[in-house]
């Protein structure tokens, strides 16, 4: 009998333990993973969101789940469908939503028909919503249990809206910061005021501030609205009801206080990385450099200091976590109020990269498109080119595999080659950290995320590869197929036979670059566009006129070409042409008058 009871008790204990043990964290990085995790998760599992922006609408109807952001300030939840809330909680219990920033959308959290909505916790979130939105909307709640604790409500239209049912059950609104509700009457609509305590309001709300330890003071943020951590002078520090593990006083108010607080500091902006001149090390191929990294101070009152992480010729530091990835990289510690770190590094000469393979050139109008295969170890490339009438030149480009070389002449053939370059490089990130001793007397360290791109600095000489193979190509205008005539330059097109003739293009360029930039020029173009087509049609029908018109146009085209070369030379040439024409006319008239006399 005893054995039977023992077996039953053991089985029950085993099942209970199993259910507790199996409540696990599922880490997600994008929206698809969120919904996959929700399907795969068991009851009471926690879905942990990596820092990032998630556009989604989550409907919780059949499973008790917890949702947590890894870095409150950098885990943004935005409603994908503007008509729906980000979280819709419907008739379920044991839901926790914590450590998120809600930035947009109709409502952030909506709790429906909450007869069965017990033990719903909304902790340590930031609600900063646009439009006529409601941060937390609770509809029909005769018997419910909702804890809204340690949130920061910043500049919302509605903060909490509790339908019209006064019989609200148990809704605790505690340790929150409510900042600048755009319609102050809607701050806590219909909320039973007895359950509103130990909050910080930046404006005086009748019946709320001054009672139940609700204060009316400005919170003093580090850099609102992006960074809503508290500065050292904030009245919201140590002003809660319960004890705080962090500094063994009382909990802070707002999203960065309370027992479920996310202790990740706000990310640090690296201002500059400077590298001093190199010093060669005797009997070594290494070179010593002094590196100076400066950053903007994080004014969060809990910051213990900063760590400078760097890697030489290595992988990117961005998005590396504190717990695992980061630990393998060098770091320099600095004090709480530091904004600069100076340290020495030893740098080996960069490896010589293999010569790249130049794959092909594609001609365009005064342009060549250059494609090559990248080389291992290369961090940049140099494109070397020379034309039949142009001296050799080069252009440096980043770590890419193609380049558009512009400003070339369509009348020249160019020879192109590519070299790969390598150079030592330091990549830098700075983390702010919070260090404290927890209730188990263990030291906890929390570092800020690496959200920004690494700050890179090149070091030492550029090591170039051998030159790639060479290719030659002449830039050329693309002619659309079929080569249809364009409106404009009608006479020239008719005389030279086709729209894309180089001579016609010269006149088009002259129209665009000179005529259309003055009122007189524009008037001429307008006149020409009205009457030009008639002349062009006449020339088209009488082919014998074409050589004659071409003869007249050639001096004009030549003049325009000179104009593009040198303006003074153009006017000189123009004067010569006019003089020659006047002189020739005079001679012809004189000769014809002589003939008549004879």
């Amino acid at each position, binding site marked *: 009998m005893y054995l039977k009871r023992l077996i039953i008790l053991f089985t029950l204990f085993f099942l209970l333990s199993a259910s507790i043990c199996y409540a696990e964290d599922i880490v997600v990085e994008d929206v698809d993973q969120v919904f996959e995790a929700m399907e795969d998760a068991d009851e009471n599992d926690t879905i942990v969101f990596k820092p990032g922006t998630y556009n989604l609408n989550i409907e919780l109807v059949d499973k008790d789940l917890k949702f947590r952001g890894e870095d409150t300030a950098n885990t943004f939840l935005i409603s994908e469908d503007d008509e729906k809330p980000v979280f819709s909680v419907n008739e379920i219990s044991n839901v926790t939503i914590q450590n998120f920033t809600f930035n947009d959308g109709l409502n952030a959290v909506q709790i429906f028909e909450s007869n069965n909505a017990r033990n719903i916790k909304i902790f340590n979130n930031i609600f900063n919503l646009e439009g006529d939105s409601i941060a937390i909307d609770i509809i029909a709640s005769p018997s419910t249990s909702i804890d809204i604790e340690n949130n920061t409500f910043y500049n919302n239209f509605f903060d909490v809206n509790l339908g019209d049912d006064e019989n609200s059950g148990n809704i605790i609104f505690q340790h929150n910061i409510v900042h600048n509700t755009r319609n102050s009457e809607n701050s806590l609509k219909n909320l039973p005021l007895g359950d509103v305590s130990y909050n910080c309001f930046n404006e005086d709300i009748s019946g709320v501030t001054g009672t139940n330890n609700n204060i009316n003071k400005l919170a003093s943020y580090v850099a609102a609205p992006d960074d809503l951590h508290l500065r050292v002078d904030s009245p919201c520090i140590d002003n809660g009801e319960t004890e705080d593990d962090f500094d063994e006083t009382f909990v802070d108010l707002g999203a960065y206080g309370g027992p479920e607080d996310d202790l990740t500091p706000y990310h640090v902006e690296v201002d500059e990385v400077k590298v001093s001149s190199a010093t060669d090390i005797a009997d070594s191929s290494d070179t010593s450099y002094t590196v100076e990294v400066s950053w903007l101070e994080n004014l969060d009152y809990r910051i213990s200091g900063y760590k400078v992480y760097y890697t030489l010729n290595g992988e990117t530091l961005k998005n590396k976590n504190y717990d695992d990835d980061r630990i393998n990289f060098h770091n320099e510690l600095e004090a709480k109020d530091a904004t600069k770190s100076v340290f020495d590094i030893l740098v080996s000469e960069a490896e010589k990269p293999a010569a790249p393979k130049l794959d092909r050139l594609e001609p365009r*109008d005064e342009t060549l498109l250059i494609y090559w295969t990248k080389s291992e170890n290369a961090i940049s490339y140099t494109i070397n080119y020379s034309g039949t009438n142009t001296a050799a030149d080069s252009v440096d480009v980043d770590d890419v595999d193609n380049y558009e070389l512009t400003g070339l002449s369509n009348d020249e053939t160019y020879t192109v080659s590519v070299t790969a370059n390598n150079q030592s490089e330091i990549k830098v990130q700075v983390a702010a950290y919070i260090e404290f001793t927890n209730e188990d007397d263990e030291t906890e360290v929390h570092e800020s995320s690496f959200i920004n791109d690494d700050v890179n600095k090149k070091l030492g000489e550029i090591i170039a590869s051998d030159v790639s193979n060479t290719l030659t190509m*002449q830039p*050329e205008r693309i002619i659309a197929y079929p080569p249809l005539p364009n*409106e404009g330059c009608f006479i020239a097109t008719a005389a030279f036979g086709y729209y894309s003739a180089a001579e016609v293009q010269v006149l088009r360029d002259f129209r665009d670059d000179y005529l259309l930039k003055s009122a007189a020029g524009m008037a001429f173009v307008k006149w020409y566009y009205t009457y030009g087509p008639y002349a062009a049609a006449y020339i088209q029908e009488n082919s014998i006129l074409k050589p004659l018109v071409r003869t007249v146009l050639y001096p004009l085209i030549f003049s325009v070409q000179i104009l593009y070369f040198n303006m003074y030379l153009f006017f000189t040439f123009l004067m010569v042409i006019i003089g020659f024409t006047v002189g020739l006319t005079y001679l012809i008239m004189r000769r014809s008058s002589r003939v008549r006399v004879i």
Partner: protein
Amino acid sequence: MNKNNICSLLFLCLLFPLGINANNASPKWTMEFYAGAFEPEDENWSTYYGSSKMPQVGFSIAYRIFNVLDIGTNISYGRDQGKGDLPLNNLIAGDVVHEMLPVELYLLFRARFTEGQWLVPYVGGGYTRFAYRQEVKGQDTVKGSVDGNHFRAGLQFLLDPLDEKSAQEIYRGFGVINSYLYLEYKQTEAEADKIKIGGTSYNMGLMLEF
């Protein structure tokens, strides 16, 4: 009776009215919306644009002069994306967008002898002002328009007998007396600098009579 006679007889049968008409009104105006494929006359088109056809959409409005003769105007738009010519380098490359916008004036003979005739063959044609535009990425846009002509023929199927109730509702709501689904063949001829830019269209559309 040979095969041709049987076909002719069947065709004549199709022309007979079903005695169904949304109302007794006689339509005067027609409106068409259509889409289809335009196949340029140029044989090398697919070399530059990947396919010998391009999508085309259009709209027409016409007035019935006589019982079987409409006069109308039509506008359509076609667009194709492909590559251009680099003759010096003997290459086909770049990004070219070719667009066309023919505007037409036409006369249309519709073999519609009775109200409620459910199959209406038609044939027509007229003047075309064929506008075009060619955009080469990174270069100037070529544009222009030329005169031309067109011929069109097709078959219209009266839709009203399929759902008389809806036909009545559409008439009461929008004044549409008859609705037809039609299939059309169209041949357009136009030349720009001796380059043929016309082609053949195969369209399907909806015609509404008011």
